[in-house]
């Protein structure tokens, strides 16, 4: 067989994958090319075959024409891919958070294994978890597509309130709240500068007494200042852009800071224990903050997901509304 034809068929074979009809398709293509060469040239030479191949199309184009009917995911199920992934990732993320706070490994059958990780590892683990969820949903939809059965997958409706939420979150920042935030933040920084802490046992500023030991004071005060600083910086960025990505980045950074704080607990951080068990209260406050910020992070992810879906497929109601307004 001609060297060029051999290479051409090998390349087509590569794009055809491992389907059971691959060999037969290649035999057919070879036969067609040889037939054309013999009909259009006096002698079937290497040059003749080369000329025929040049007009036959690139190996990828040829292979794609044969694969047109073989879809990985049916068009009707493509919308499910993102929606189901968001739902699965929300669940996955919640489990990661629980595992992170409780500092334990977690195995949820059939497929979630969440190792005990610190905040830095979590940064890498989250995108990996998202990729895993996307792949998992993709595999299921692949099997549904190839079963060729009329399987009606549930289409969970996300509340219409998301629209309002989206509009609310996308409003630009205003100056007055921003200055008040800056003022409050300035006071906290000043307190830290003067007393080495922002956590006080009393409200007597003439004789300030820190709630924590000096090392714990520095650690927790800087943590709080970092969390608030990120919030204010994000608010400032929203003067220039109203993208939901700002909210997502803010919550993501705050989660990392909170993760660092949780992962490096101080031993006996309080100067003295009163009648209240302050450690339990502190744990509850940190847990509530973590859940709050994590919820905000997920909300941003869902809103971004919905926006992507809307860009792809406008709601049928929108069309009707336009019609009515005419």
């Amino acid at each position, binding site marked *: 067989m001609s060297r060029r034809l051999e290479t051409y068929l090998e390349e087509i074979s590569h794009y055809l994958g491992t389907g059971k009809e691959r060999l037969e*398709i290649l035999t057919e*293509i070879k036969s*067609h090319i040889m037939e054309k060469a*013999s009909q259009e040239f006096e002698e079937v030479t290497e040059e003749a075959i080369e000329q025929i191949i040049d007009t*036959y199309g690139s190996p990828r184009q040829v292979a794609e024409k*044969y694969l*047109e*009917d073989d879809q990985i995911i049916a068009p009707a199920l493509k919308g499910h891919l993102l929606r189901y992934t968001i739902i699965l990732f929300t669940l996955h993320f919640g489990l990661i958070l629980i595992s992170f706070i409780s500092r334990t490994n977690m195995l949820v059958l059939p497929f979630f294994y969440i190792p005990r990780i610190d905040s830095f590892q979590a940064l890498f683990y989250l995108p990996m978890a998202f990729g895993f969820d996307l792949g998992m949903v993709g595999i299921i939809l692949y099997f549904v597509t190839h079963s060729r059965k009329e399987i009606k997958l549930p289409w969970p409706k996300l509340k219409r309130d998301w629209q309002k939420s989206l509009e609310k979150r996308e409003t630009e920042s205003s100056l007055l709240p921003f200055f008040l935030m800056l003022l409050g933040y300035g006071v906290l920084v000043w307190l830290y500068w003067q007393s080495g802490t922002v956590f006080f046992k009393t409200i007597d500023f003439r004789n300030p007494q820190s709630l924590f030991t000096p090392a714990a004071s520095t650690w927790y005060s800087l943590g709080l200042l970092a969390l608030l600083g990120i919030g204010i910086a994000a608010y400032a960025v929203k003067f220039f852009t109203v993208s939901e990505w700002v909210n997502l980045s803010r919550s993501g950074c705050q989660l990392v800071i909170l993760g660092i704080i949780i992962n490096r607990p101080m031993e006996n951080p309080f100067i003295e224990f009163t009648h209240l068990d302050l450690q339990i209260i502190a744990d509850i406050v940190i847990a509530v903050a973590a859940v709050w910020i994590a919820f905000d992070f997920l909300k941003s992810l869902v809103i971004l997901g919905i926006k992507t879906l809307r860009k792809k497929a406008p709601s049928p109601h929108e069309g009707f509304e336009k019609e009515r307004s005419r």
Partner: protein
Amino acid sequence: METDIIPFETEMNRGFLQVLVLVLLEREMYGYAMVKKMEEKKFALEENTLYPLLRRLEKKGLIEGKWDVTEDRPRKFYIITEDGRDVRAGLLKIWQRQTAIMNRLLKENPNV
């Protein structure tokens, strides 16, 4: 800027080529002979579109393919099946109805 007509033509040809092949294969033919036959009728039938189409129609049972290895070069001959004839009859009716509708519309809108 002029709109490129080729993608629209490809889309339009999709259905047309199916009927065309089902009509051509009333008698046994091989791929290259079909291309040549259509060339005589001033219609360029692209090979890399025709052969995958023949394969799809064969998979659906509308045509039947048989390898002829009696000559030096093996050739695959195709012919329409009974199922193919039924589908062809239905498709031709649709095509005639569509042509009639289009002709009526064009008469009503002479500016088109």
